[in-house]
């Protein structure tokens, strides 16, 4: 809901901005670009700069879950740019809701890091250009949690009673089940009900013995203040936490984690695909990508930007959360499967019920 309010404000301010920039000159003067993106997910200058360069007006709406975005798009609302996550792009492609990118109009594909190019959901980047990417891992207080425990236990550290009452879980069925399945040594994309049930029992045991707080974005500020010892977190949020508080570390268990990416796509019913291609180029360029990554904290798919921000003197130097892990065979990209989604959603709500009664 907080995001909802913020998005409302973002929309208002975007409207106000565009009202000011009405008389701009530029190749796209008078045209409008409708962007549908996550809340708090854009660089501070990117929209204004794009408007100044093209003369177009950008109207941005925000969503706070892929599913929320999906409903609007599937119901025929028209946007020029969407920024969904990997598995949702897969679904949108399957349901024929996206148009193929015109690669002759794109000059940004060569700028991407190898690790984020040609991911399984869109092997040739025919439909999508990555916007941010990262991993899911454990944010921990280096003064309280020993590296040794992390190495030894991996995600099972969330069941180590040494840290009882000192942990945050993330209120997302997908990430919670990823954690449990990986702790048990299974694939996060398993469709086996047996394995899912085992993961469910793992989570129930965790919430019943560990007194966790199940939160969403509150984890960011609270870990930055060092309120608890351990938490499940997105790498980009961890990067922010670590820039704020040097006692915090980020750990990815050897048993594997989720490599995720959010990417820009153009829906079939886009009104201005031309301008949308322009926007994709702009966001992926050095300036756009740098602005995004510096403001938001997530890893840039632009290889040069990622390199510069993570090397010595860079804004995220020494922050391991900023660089997504490559080369661990246990790391996986999430695959969408409606049956499994329904099972996991039901089980996760049961976990929360169990947590409330614990």
């Amino acid at each position: 809901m907080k995001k909802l309010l913020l998005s409302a404000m973002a929309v208002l301010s975007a409207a106000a901005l565009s009202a000011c920039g009405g008389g701009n000159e530029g190749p796209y003067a008078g045209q409008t670009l409708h962007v549908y993106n996550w809340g708090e997910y854009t660089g501070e200058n990117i929209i204004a700069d794009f408007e100044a360069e093209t003369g177009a007006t950008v109207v941005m709406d925000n969503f706070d879950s892929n599913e929320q975005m999906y409903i609007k798009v599937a119901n025929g609302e028209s946007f020029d740019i969407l920024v969904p996550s990997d598995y949702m792009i897969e679904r949108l492609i399957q349901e024929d809701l996206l148009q193929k990118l015109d690669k002759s109009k794109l000059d940004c594909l060569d700028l991407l890091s190898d690790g984020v190019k040609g991911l399984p959901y869109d092997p040739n980047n025919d439909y999508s250009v990555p916007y941010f990417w990262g991993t899911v891992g454990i944010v921990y207080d280096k003064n309280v949690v020993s590296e040794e425990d992390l190495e030894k236990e991996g995600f099972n550290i969330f069941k180590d009673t040494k840290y009882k009452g000192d942990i945050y879980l993330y209120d997302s069925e997908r990430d919670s089940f990823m954690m449990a399945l990986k702790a048990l040594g299974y694939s996060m994309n398993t469709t086996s009900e047996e394995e899912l049930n085992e993961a469910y029992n793992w989570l129930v045991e965790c919430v019943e013995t560990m007194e966790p707080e199940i939160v969403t974005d509150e984890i960011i500020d609270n870990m930055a203040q060092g309120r608890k010892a351990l938490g499940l977190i997105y790498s980009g949020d961890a990067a922010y936490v670590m820039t704020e508080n040097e006692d915090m570390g980020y750990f990815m268990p050897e048993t594997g984690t989720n490599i995720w990416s959010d990417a820009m796509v153009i829906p079939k019913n886009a009104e201005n695909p031309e301008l949308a291609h322009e926007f994709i180029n702009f966001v992926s360029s050095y300036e756009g990508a740098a602005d995004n990554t510096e403001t938001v904290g997530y890893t840039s798919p632009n290889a040069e930007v990622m390199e510069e921000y993570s090397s010595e003197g860079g804004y995220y130097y020494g922050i391991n959360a900023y660089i997504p892990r490559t080369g661990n065979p246990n790391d996986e990209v999430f695959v969408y499967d409606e049956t499994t989604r329904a099972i996991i959603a039901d089980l996760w709500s049961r976990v929360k019920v169990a947590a409330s009664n614990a």
Partner: protein
Amino acid sequence: MKTFSRLSVPYLVWLFMMVLAPMLLIAFYAITDSGNGIINFTFTLKHFAKFFTDRDFLLILWRSLVIAVKTTVICTVIGYPVAYFIAGSSDKVRNALILAITIPMWINMLVRTYAWIGILSDGGPLQRLLEMLGFGSPELMYTEGAVLLGMVYNFIPFMILQINTSLCKMDKSLIEASADLGADKLQTFLRVVFPLSLPGVVSGISLVFLPAVSSFFIPKLLGGGQFFLIGNVIENQFITVGEWNFGSAISMIMAAVMMCSMYLVRRLDLKTEGKVSKARTLPGGRLAS
């Protein structure tokens, strides 16, 4: 008369579309099993069975009732003196006070609850204050206390306004009569004023208890993801799990619980009305004669 009764047609249509039809739909979902479509379905009671055979769900229902009762009691205990004070003030002061209580209600409840997140959060003003007073830095957010506070804060105006109305409507001559007949202030309050204000208390109770028992965004915001009340379970079934049938079944169970409590409150109301009318005939009757 007939022409006037026609004016109620838009209201009846509205009532049907916005109240009755959704209710029927929920009832329908609750006893069928078809996912979210209503073309192919089979009747079943398994959703109710699922709820009543699961200790976890029953516990949540119990906890929701307990916290709603706590909220109602606190609202009554705090609300009554406030309402009494307001009712006893001069007209000018009373209007100002009523306004002061009503003004926050002009702001959306959700926004006001968000304000509490800021106040209660770690490192927030309340925690700092407690720290300064030497209470350490207790965690305030994501506790039952926070949820209770949020509920009392949001629902107490209903209690105060109801009690205040019934106190103001009271015939002041009854109090004078009670004094004339030798009752001291405490006796007058206990035997005349309080019984006469009970209808206000009763309607205040139902206005506080019912929203409190089904509240879902207050526990969600102030209690966190590990603080589920029955309203959260229902919301979860609809929004994330996608089990509309089970969600509807729980809604029906909630509706039944609410109707039972309304019935109990009404019985309380009838009983007190009996007493009140007795109280009215005795001193009032003598005064009149």
